[in-house]
């Protein structure tokens, strides 16, 4: 068969590359390709990397189909440019192999187990250092406990208080109509007090703190990790756990229960407002009713929950902070993951504790 001849345009560059490449590529990969194709460079005056890519690419696909590509009338300067932009290395044609379904299941299971192991390891390390660093304040960053307590606790008072007040208010509002039907107005106090103290108070506070401070903890540690600050600390002989994390552990373990009590109180006040305005219950009877229904058990559960939640938040924040991969964009990823993960486990723990104490 006659070799097919193609005359290349004067300038083979970013503008004309596609219009040269497309027809020739179709010809080569088409039904009946010629056994040889002649690229005539007679007119070509200038050629850039896009032009070189066209020639090089055509060469590669022609080779695969056993077609000879002949370059004709090649000027010296054009030939040099072609050479500069010619791919030397064999393009790796190997495709990434898709893992089998069972392999994937196995891998996922293994990595879950691995993460769980790391989490447990981190938890025990944090407990150990929290104990040790209590007696050796020199291991901790100076003034950090106070700083963190202010950050995690005091600065959250406003938002936590407001939200709890609204929750108590809404709880009372929703039940008021029902209670009124039975003339059981005063029981709104019991309802709000129990619901706030054993459930809503700890939960709302923990969710707020996970969003505010858990994310900040993860982001701070992750940022230090990717910018090699953690490595620098280690080289200077400082263990990052007692130095960075333990002050936060103390701060959150102290402030989350206090915040929770504050949230409980404001929630009950929210209920009181509804009782006063909607159900005609005076403040004092409402208050007395609240006191009469509360047992040590509720207060204890409230404190226990907030303590457990505090540890869930700090451990997940720390875990994800240290787990960061990549650069700045990795920080965003682990921060989000840490918030989602800690809120999830706070709710799981809440259910478990609820079952333990109230299931009969």
């Amino acid at each position: 068969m006659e070799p097919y001849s193609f005359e290349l345009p004067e300038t083979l560059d970013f503008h004309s590359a596609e219009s040269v490449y497309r027809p020739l590529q179709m010809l080569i990969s088409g039904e009946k390709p010629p056994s040889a194709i002649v690229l005539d460079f007679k007119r070509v005056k200038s050629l850039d990397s896009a032009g070189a890519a066209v020639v090089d690419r055509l060469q590669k696909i022609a080779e695969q189909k056993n077609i000879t590509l002949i370059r004709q009338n090649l000027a010296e300067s054009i030939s040099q440019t072609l050479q500069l932009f010619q791919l030397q290395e064999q393009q790796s044609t190997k495709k990434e192999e898709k893992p089998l379904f069972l392999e994937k299941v196995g891998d996922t299971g293994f990595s879950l187990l691995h993460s769980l192991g790391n989490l447990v390891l981190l938890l025990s390390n944090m407990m150990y250092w929290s104990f040790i660093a209590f007696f050796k304040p020199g291991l901790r960053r100076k003034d950090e406990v106070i700083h963190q307590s202010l950050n995690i606790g005091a600065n959250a008072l406003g938002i936590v208080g407001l939200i709890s007040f609204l929750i108590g208010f809404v709880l009372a509002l929703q039940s008021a109509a029902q209670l009124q039907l039975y003339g059981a107005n005063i029981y709104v106090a019991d309802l709000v007090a129990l619901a706030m103290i054993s459930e809503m108070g700890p939960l709302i506070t923990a969710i707020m703190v996970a969003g505010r401070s858990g994310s900040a903890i993860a982001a701070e540690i992750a940022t230090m990790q990717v910018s090699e600050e953690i490595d620098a600390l280690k080289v200077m002989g400082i263990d990052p756990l007692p130095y960075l994390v333990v002050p936060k552990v103390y701060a959150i373990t102290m402030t989350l229960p206090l915040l929770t009590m504050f949230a409980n109180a404001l929630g009950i006040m929210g209920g009181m407002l509804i009782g006063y305005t909607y159900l005609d219950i005076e403040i004092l009877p409402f208050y007395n009713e609240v006191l009469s229904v509360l047992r040590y058990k509720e207060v204890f559960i409230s404190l226990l929950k907030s303590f457990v939640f505090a540890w869930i938040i700090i451990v997940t924040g720390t875990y994800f902070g240290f787990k960061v991969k990549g650069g700045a964009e990795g920080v965003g990823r682990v921060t989000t993951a840490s918030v989602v993960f800690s809120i999830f486990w706070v709710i799981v723990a809440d259910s478990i504790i609820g079952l333990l104490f109230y299931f009969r």
Partner: protein
Amino acid sequence: MQTPIIEIKNLSSGYEEDVLILKDVNLTIYPNQITTILGTSGCGKTTLLKHLIGLLTPLEGELIVLGKNLAQIDENEMNSILRKMGVLFQNGALLNSISVAENIAIPLEQHTSLSKDLIEHLIRIKLELVGLSHAYHLLPSELSGGMRKRAALARALALDPQILFADEPSAGLDPVTTAALDHLLISLQKQLGMTVVVVTHEVNSIRRIADRVVYLDNGQILFSGTLDEALQSPLPQLQSFFS
């Protein structure tokens, strides 16, 4: 003498009102040459480059790039000038959330209508030019500092720019890779007629590639001339630099 490709006239500028970083800079850059800019760190080299690519506007003076006065052109004209420039930033400035190949694909997809396989082929060519063939699928965070620099250079070269600005391309590179990079710059200048403006401190590199040398000292041009003139200059700063 050729017509200049870049002219800087009486440029004064700074980041804050009262602190001038560049003081009355006059500089002419000719096409198809490699100009190296040297000077102690903090003397204003990066600031000067940022003016040339329109990221900073001068307090006083004129910038004429490719025949256009940057102060007098609209956004469209600026874009068509930018399309002819490739810029390698001092810290690489790769987008970290996408792979090296995707980084290089950005200018190609933005400014050309090439098909997917040609773009892929071009990316491979550019990566091979800077010696990073294996980094195609990697993320910038999986590269070393010097590799990131080279990947960023590949991105700057994606569209065969008329003018290539490179801010310390060989900082953090080993001498072998630096030499390879120098040869690449020379080939690009010879074969594509590229104008190259490089900020660099590598004396060996300057000796290899420079057509012209500019010495910036505390925001002022202390010296501007050919490589030979620079080598024979009696200025103590240049002498201590080249000795």
